[in-house]
């Protein structure tokens, strides 16, 4: 028989024009269920007005990002056991740095538009998707195969980034990571966009993006690498006329 815990799910509620507040729902859960299961249970059996985003339930769509007990999590792969204990409270809030549409659902439009602006690829040659091993260790023959990019566009990195909290124009970790993956050598037109106040230089090295990224994109490392690419590109332009 599966283990049972009694928990309180504390959900941030905010409909248009309202100031946010929390509603509490007591429920019995299997601690190995995921946080998203608990939120769905509220919607299914307790309160049909709770609004949240979700789709695939297996960390591919990137829709169910929320703040769970103050930390950005992809709720479909975050087990309740990892976030609280029997008799404890699970607090769920919407992602930061995006406008709240309703309760736990935020408007991710700015992220998608910026990813498009840097030409972030959703599909790329296998060796360029670094999730399994570094690009240099792949056989060049594997270049012919393609796979989905590592970034699932969940926005957790934007929510966790303290710099994004104070500049709405900041491109943000996922977008800069997308630009880095494209490379300035291959896409020199990106230089102007990323070598800017709200580009790579807005990052203040808090590394929070990499800490919360559920897909091993490691945006902070990519931002640092993009800075090196910016230096190299600027330096080489000193000697070559455009």
């Amino acid at each position, binding site marked *: 028989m599966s283990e049972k815990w009694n928990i309180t799910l504390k959900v941030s509620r905010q409909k248009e024009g309202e100031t946010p507040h929390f509603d509490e729902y007591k429920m019995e859960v299997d601690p190995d269920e995921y946080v998203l299961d608990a939120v769905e249970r509220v919607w299914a059996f307790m309160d049909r007005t709770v609004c949240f985003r979700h789709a695939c339930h297996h960390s591919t769509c990137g829709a169910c990002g929320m703040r769970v007990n103050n930390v950005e999590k992809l709720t479909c792969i975050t087990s309740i056991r990892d976030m609280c204990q029997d008799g404890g409270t699970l607090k769920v809030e919407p992602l930061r740095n995006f406008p709240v549409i309703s309760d736990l659902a935020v408007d991710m439009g700015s992220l998608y538009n910026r990813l498009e602006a840097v030409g972030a690829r959703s599909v790329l040659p296998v060796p360029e998707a670094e999730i399994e091993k570094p690009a240099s260790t792949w056989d060049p023959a594997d270049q012919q195969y393609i796979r989905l990019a590592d970034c699932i566009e969940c926005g957790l990195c934007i929510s966790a980034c303290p710099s994004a909290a*104070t500049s709405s124009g900041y491109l943000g970790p996922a977008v800069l990571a997308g630009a880095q993956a494209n490379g300035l050598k291959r896409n020199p037109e990106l230089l102007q966009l990323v070598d800017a106040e709200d580009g790579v230089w807005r990052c*203040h090295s*808090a590394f929070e993006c990499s800490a919360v990224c559920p897909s091993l994109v490691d945006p*902070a*490392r990519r931002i640092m690498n993009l800075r090196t690419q910016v230096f190299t590109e600027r330096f080489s332009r000193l000697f070559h006329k455009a």
Partner: protein
Amino acid sequence: MEKPSPDKFWTWFNPVGRETGGWAFILNRVTALGLTFYLYLHLVILSQLATGPQAYDQFVALMRNPISISAEVLVVAAGIMHGLNGIRIVLTTFGFGVTRQKQLFYGLMALALVIILFFTVRMFTA
């Protein structure tokens, strides 16, 4: 994206749910603000000293008391932590220690502690 607002400024200093890099970020902001405030204070005090020898003597006497020395130690500590944290940022920007940024931060802060202790002893015993 959501517009920045004054109350979001405090999110810079909110340590809840932060990781090592976040702590380093907060420390850099706090020490930067402290050092900026000190610079302002320093200029105000310097302008007071220009009023004559009596003001100068009074100020030197004031700076000898333990509370003033403790405040000076805080300034030195802020300068050392801010400087070494800045070195972490420069190193990672150039691609050094990016995958070891936590260890880099702890190592530099351990070094900061040793230097701060050295200056604390020197300043209280001078």
